């Protein structure tokens, strides 16, 4: 086990390097650089920056340096000092910026994940068991509609509904009065009041796929002889489905469960953006758009690491739940 994990980690290191290199390269693909985008954003507000001043700054920040030099410095900082560098835009260490957003990001990610899976699994199982019933069709239709409505639009419409129906304050995860208040029950309730829109939007959009796969997998498993065997033992129907076919139908999900790890971190960027949630997703989007190299690079690197860890976790999880994998028989 330890040897296996060790080998996997060894294999992971070059992958991570390649990902970081490519990510860093991709971030640099767009024309211009961070300062150009700063000038642009100032200009949008009616302000100008003296070009001479900007050129001087460009030198100071090392922005004009060749790609390899920049990458080398950045990686060097990470490897030798554990320093992700600092954001141009915020003028603060990347680690601090990310750390601040992490708790809410995780709350949103985990809540959404739970919501999605509870809804999707229930619906998927029901769909499969009641195959070709009205409910089956209804579930898939609703799932598809949720999938098909662009997320940003769904977020806006729900926000508008919240506004017209409840006079709710939309945007962010807290009402102003609780935003910077210490944690209390009031704040938790306030958070819940704001959390439902993104959770609903992101969660529902994700259900269609899971419902479909659950249903298909379960339909594959339901006619298998071992189900009949279980029935022949006199087990109640619900228990049969939960213990046998569902368990096996879930394997493909478990094998991809770790992939959700990075999405917990960067979340649903677009929805978070529309609703101005203080999560890492919008931070990444902003950093990419303003070419805030170190911030974007740092977040991407973390996502890449999480992806790799997630895959590893999936493998381990799958081995844990599926003895066939554990004993090399699958």
């Amino acid at each position, binding site marked *: 086990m330890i040897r296996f994990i060790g080998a996997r980690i060894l294999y992971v290191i070059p992958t991570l390097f390649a990902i970081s290199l*490519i990510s860093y390269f991709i971030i640099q693909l767009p024309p211009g650089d961070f300062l150009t985008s700063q000038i642009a954003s100032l200009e949008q507000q009616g302000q100008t920056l003296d070009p001479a001043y900007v050129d001087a700054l460009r030198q100071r920040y090392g922005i004009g340096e060749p790609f390899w030099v920049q990458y080398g410095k950045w990686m060097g900082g990470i490897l030798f000092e554990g320093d992700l560098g600092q954001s141009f835009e915020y003028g603060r260490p990347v680690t601090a910026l990310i750390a601040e957003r992490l708790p809410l990001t995780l709350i949103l990610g985990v809540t959404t994940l739970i919501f999605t899976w509870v809804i999707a699994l229930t619906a998927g199982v029901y769909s499969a068991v009641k195959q070709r019933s009205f409910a089956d069709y209804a579930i898939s239709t609703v799932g598809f509609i949720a999938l*098909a409505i*662009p997320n*940003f639009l769904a977020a806006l419409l729900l926000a508008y509904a919240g506004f017209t129906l409840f006079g709710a304050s939309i945007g962010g995860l807290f009402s102003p009065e609780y935003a910077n208040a210490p944690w209390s029950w009031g704040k938790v309730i306030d958070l819940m009041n704001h959390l439902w829109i993104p959770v609903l939007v992101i969660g529902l959009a994700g259900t269609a796929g899971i419902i479909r796969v659950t249903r298909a997998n379960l339909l594959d498993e339901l006619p298998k002889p071992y189900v009949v065997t279980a029935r022949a033992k006199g087990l109640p129907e619900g228990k049969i489905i939960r213990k046998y076919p569902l368990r096996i139908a879930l394997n493909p999900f478990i094998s991809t469960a770790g992939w959700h790890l990075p999405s917990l971190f960067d979340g649903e960027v677009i929805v978070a953006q529309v609703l101005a949630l203080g999560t890492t997703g919008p931070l990444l989007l902003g950093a990419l758009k303003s070419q805030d190299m170190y911030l974007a690079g740092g977040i991407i690197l973390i996502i890449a690491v999480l992806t790799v860890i997630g895959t590893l976790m999936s493998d381990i999880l799958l081995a844990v739940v599926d003895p066939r994998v554990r004993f090399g028989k699958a």
Partner: protein
Amino acid sequence: MVDQMNPAALEAPPTPRQMRKARAQLKFLDGTASQSQLIRRRYKSNPMAMFGLYLLCLIYFTAIFAGFLAPHSASSTSADHAYQPPQAVHFTLEDGFFIHPTESSTDIETLQRVFVEDPDVKIPLTFFATGDEYQLLGFIPADVHFFGTVDPDQRLYLLGADRAGADLLSLILYGGQISLSLGLIGVAVSLVLGIVIGGISGYFGGLTDTIIQRVIEFIMSIPTLPLWLGLAAAIPPRWGITETYFAITMILSLLGWTGMARVIRGRVLQSRGEDYILAAKLDGASHGRIILRHMMPSFVSHIIASMSLAVPAMILAETSLSFLGLGLRAPAISWGVLLQDSQNLQVVANAPWLLMPALAVVLTVIAFNFVGDGLRDAADPYGK
């Protein structure tokens, strides 16, 4: 057997529909039905899939004949009709179809656009009306529109107008041309890449397979958002709408091929173990012939199914890219662009009809999904 299932057939003379059904049944029973016939048969028995198919045909029909079906050209605007709400079409026997003209003014206090209908004046409407010029199917100059005002200078807003006074129905129809083809072309490119790379990976296996699989895994573990942003922003600034459109398609398909390659690899791997493939090998068939003649037919329907599921993903990806300001931009017209334009409170609150492009997206995505699901269910008439 046919009679058994439909006792009514005995009593009344069979309708053509029943005859067709009976013939299909016979074909099935005597074994002369080919795979595609069997798939069609199974597919047809799935009401959702059939609904999706009809819907999809309708959607593509409207996109292909957008110029003919749209009352106006996409670029034709009218200052007097900005934010014109959808117009009601009236019908009387003596006048046929008509609408009433509207006079718009802006209330300085509330900034509201007020549209006053003049019930005394009728703007006659007609089928096959002459109006804006367009190119039918892209090359036939024409100016006849399926439905429109008799007077080509009058305007018709069945679904309302956008803020510049362009007819939303026409915009949606023209936008469909881009959105719907973008998905298809993108998926087609993905498919070619996927078949070549996935096919090689699955058929030859071994080291080739391992390397390709590692590369795919690697590409898949690069976060998509930066990849989108990076690639989309790297499109040379001088490029026009057509080139940008092409580039966006390429970007979408470059990100999409890995999934396709995995599907195809899996299918190739699976059929590689079939006895009939071994038989073909022993029959002296070449690698090419084995892949194309013996393997492909068994998963071509699966490929079509996964394609049909990939197209809506592409369409949605395009709307997301547009939302991020990275995809197509106005004055290009795609559903994504139209939706991006309706991304504001003013539209949601006061011009909700401008959200209609979302309906087009939803219908298309659902249609594709139904078709894809149906195909997947019908894909393998010999399976199970």
